[in-house]
């Protein structure tokens, strides 16, 4: 019996190594003083980070990506709030099928979404721009926002809302003064998740990018040039640190939201 438990622990250990291998190697190569990304390591340097500071194209791509990610986060959270509130508070006709349809982008291959938006934009005679990427990103981020926000809305005590009505508040005031503050942690978590997903999304962005690249599209273009790889590792490290910090903040808000409503914490995101 003891041996069996050991095998289990070994398996989990090896699995974690497998899971974390890329995330651990990324900073290792970012600080490696060699223009070739391979072992053995040559020594410590921060020059690959310095290279990033003077790269104009990269800065433009970062700017584009930030603009897209912020807009996506705002809109998909707004759509998420509406859908999550509707589906958790009201019973309406065809609720299950409507929600299933809205959540569909979660299981649809991203290439299908990229292709279909590309077809529509071209057929309608519009130009590809950063806005086409934003539309695609809102589409794929909204289901994630709904998933997070649904649990926030589900944990709401309906009697608080009724109390507000009894005290003479209007529906509108109740929504803004009672409901929104209670689900605020969920909203913050949803904004951060949508931002993080959009910032890293490549497959749709690659299909819908016109002449202006996003950060992942820029990285894709650079992966062909071996000389650029070490500085890409530095860039990846910065992105990794940024994503994890955002997630920790998002998780903090999610937990706070759960504590606020007094429900036991049962898991992470998604």
């Amino acid at each position, binding site marked *: 019996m003891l041996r069996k438990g050991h095998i*289990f622990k070994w398996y*989990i250990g090896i699995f*974690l190594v*497998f*899971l974390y*291998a*890329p*995330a651990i*190697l*990324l900073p290792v190569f970012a600080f490696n003083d060699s223009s070739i*990304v*391979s*072992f053995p390591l040559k020594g410590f340097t921060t020059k690959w980070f310095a290279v990033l500071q003077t790269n104009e194209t990269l800065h433009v791509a970062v700017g584009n990506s930030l603009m897209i990610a912020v807009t996506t986060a705002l809109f998909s959270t*707004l*759509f998420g709030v*509406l859908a999550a*509130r*509707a589906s958790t508070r*009201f*019973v*309406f006709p065809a*609720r299950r099928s*409507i929600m299933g*349809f*809205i959540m*569909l*982008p*979660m*299981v649809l*291959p991203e*290439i*299908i979404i990229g*292709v*279909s*938006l590309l*077809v*529509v934009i*071209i*057929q309608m005679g519009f130009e590809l721009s950063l806005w086409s990427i934003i*539309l*695609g990103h*809102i*589409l794929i981020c909204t289901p994630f926002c709904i998933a997070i926000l649904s649990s926030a809305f589900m944990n709401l005590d309906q009697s608080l809302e009724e109390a507000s009505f009894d005290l003479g508040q209007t529906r509108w005031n109740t929504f803004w003064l009672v409901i929104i503050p209670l689900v605020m942690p969920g909203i913050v978590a949803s904004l951060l998740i949508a931002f993080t997903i959009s910032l890293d*999304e*490549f*497959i749709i962005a690659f*299909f819908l990018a016109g002449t202006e690249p996003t950060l*992942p599209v820029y990285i894709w273009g650079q*992966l062909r040039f071996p000389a650029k790889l070490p500085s*890409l*590792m530095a860039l*990846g490290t910065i*992105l990794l640190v940024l*994503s*994890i910090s955002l997630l920790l903040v998002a998780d903090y808000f999610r937990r706070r939201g759960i504590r606020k409503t007094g429900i036991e*914490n*049962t*898991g*992470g995101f*998604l």
Partner: protein
Amino acid sequence: MTWFQKWRRGEGAQGLFLISPTLAFTLLLLAVPLVMVIVLSFWTQDYLTLHRTFSLENYRTAWTEPMYQYLMARSLKISMLVTAMTVLLAYPVAYFISFRVSPKRKAMWIFLITIPFWTSYLMRIFLWKVILGYNGVVNGSLMGLGVIEQPLSFILYNQNAVVLTLAHAWVPFAILPIFVALERVDRSLIEAAEDLGDTKWRRFLRVTLPLSMPGVIAATIIVFIPTIGDYVTPRLVGGPNGLMIANMIELQFKKANDAPLGAALAISAMIIVTCVALIFIWLNKKYIREAK
């Protein structure tokens, strides 16, 4: 009050009103585009002229040309292997978190599992290329340990590399639904099986596994369908024999400039994947019924 006014103030109308912006957005940017892709797949294109007359030509090409048949079969095989590997890797981890980790620490473990997923997608795939490469981490360590004398060349630029890299990318998505299903398994049922004298292994096969099947099915669907659409992993680590149908779809929409054929390929792939997924769900329902 007329019935309409009553309805308008009722729950149903309020819910529909609230959800209408999100629904309208999804209809406009998902349903309409999908319909247009279907329409496009029945048109034909030579070079720059698009012929808007109904034709099954693209589907004939997609389903009869050996190259496309071969690519489709290979993509299906890779997606199935990825799904099987992902679920097999994920189940013990989900089981461990659900049954062996103390309730207070479960959230932390789930967080630990999802962190690598937030490493840049492109970087993650590229690093697998570094890990599996000729002078890569695996070959370097094996040679350093004296296990092998020559670097292994069969681990990169082939289908194995694609399967491994995709499994790595999707394993968190498989762990979560299985974990949720395992959490819902009524612990008293397992105790009852124990009291009735079932061994640990039989208890697992007859109680825990069937009860957690919904999670396994969800994991399978979540992994299987999207992996067929990945064109980045095959391109970076697949080599010439590891390319998948999504690479061909991308090629048709971009460089080859034959969007209608690309659309037909995309829709064919979706139909095949959906059918496979439905058969899988049906088989599982049968298994669950028989286990009861």
